[in-house]
């Protein structure tokens, strides 16, 4: 299987199949991230399309200097905020509460987790999501946020401390 770099080189030469491979490799990741920012299926689809059109316009002279996720993350975030602003939707904090599925018996812990996440400062919550939902490492997160690794680590630590101390989520940290 070709690396991202190899696919980009092929796409730079006009190979549409290479772009197709890149698209399918990152489509779900982009959609999931967009959905997380917008909390709306249709908006997430719009962001998905705009993100890949943005990527497409980089060709034929695209040079990837970091990972693809590091490159795509700011684009998805920016486009999501734009779409959310246009559609005058509720902010993430409000929506994470209002659109959260009603917790079923076995999902109680998830509902409580969502509640605690919602009261976290945005910057801490974002770092938690990037690390544990998007699977990004410290360096990637730092690159995306244009912040020092120490700052990222600090935000992550503070966010986890809130979860660790809150009675609704402390069970996650018990051995």
């Amino acid at each position, binding site marked *: 299987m070709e690396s991202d770099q190899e696919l980009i080189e092929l*796409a730079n*030469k*006009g*190979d*549409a199949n290479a*772009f*197709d491979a890149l*698209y*399918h490799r990152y*489509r*779900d990741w982009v*959609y*999931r991230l967009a*959905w*997380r920012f917008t909390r709306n*299926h249709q908006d*997430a*689809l719009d962001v*998905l*399309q705009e993100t*890949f*059109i943005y990527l*497409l*316009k980089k*060709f*034929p002279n695209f040079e990837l200097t970091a990972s693809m996720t590091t490159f795509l993350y700011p684009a998805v975030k920016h486009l999501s905020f734009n779409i959310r602003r246009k559609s005058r939707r509720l902010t993430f904090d409000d929506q994470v509460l209002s659109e959260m599925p009603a917790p079923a018996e076995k999902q109680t*812990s*998830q509902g409580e*987790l*969502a509640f605690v*996440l919602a009261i976290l400062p945005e910057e801490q919550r974002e770092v*938690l*999501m990037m*690390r*544990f*939902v998007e*699977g990004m*490492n*410290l360096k990637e997160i730092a690159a995306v946020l244009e912040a020092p690794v120490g700052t990222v*680590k600090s935000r*992550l*630590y503070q966010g*986890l*401390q809130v*979860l660790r101390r809150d009675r609704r*989520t402390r069970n*996650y*940290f018990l051995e």
Partner: protein
Amino acid sequence: MNENKEYFDEDSNLRVSDKLSEDLNALFKPASFVPPEIDRAIMDKARQHLVRRSRQRSPLRWAGPAASAAAAAVIIFAVVSNTGRQRGSAVFETAKGPDSSVLISDQAPAQVEMYNSYSVGTFKSLKTVRAHISVDIDGNGRVDILDAFKLARDIESAEKAEMKWDINGDGFVNRSDVDFVAFDAVRLDKGV
């Protein structure tokens, strides 16, 4: 990713349980998936964009090999011509004859020397000349390196060459005319 996790998990305060990780992913997992129409729309745009860009790049892509071919033609012609000169053959220069054709002659050594040095001035007039004279030597409807080859062969083999192939208008049908054809065949703005 294992490497990343190891790096990350150096600090136990930054670790989370599998249960927390699973619940986070479950919470933020989208309820819907990307419909195939979206895939098709994006890929259609990609094909249009990449094919268009690829076409725009194509003249440059062929410029290198074409220039090499032209250079090769010039070198081959120069080698063949020099060989002929050493044998005392009358193949280098031509002079206007009374019937508007060109008589092949070896009476113009200065012209040969000027040509061998690839004087910049020799090629400066290319565009002007090209504007007035068709260099489709083989008459196949396009100007390419085959025209240069044909003209070179004609000059070398014939006792008379048609004056219409005096491409640069210097009164001679010689290698500089072949050069003009070769350079015309590989110019970057061709067909624009």
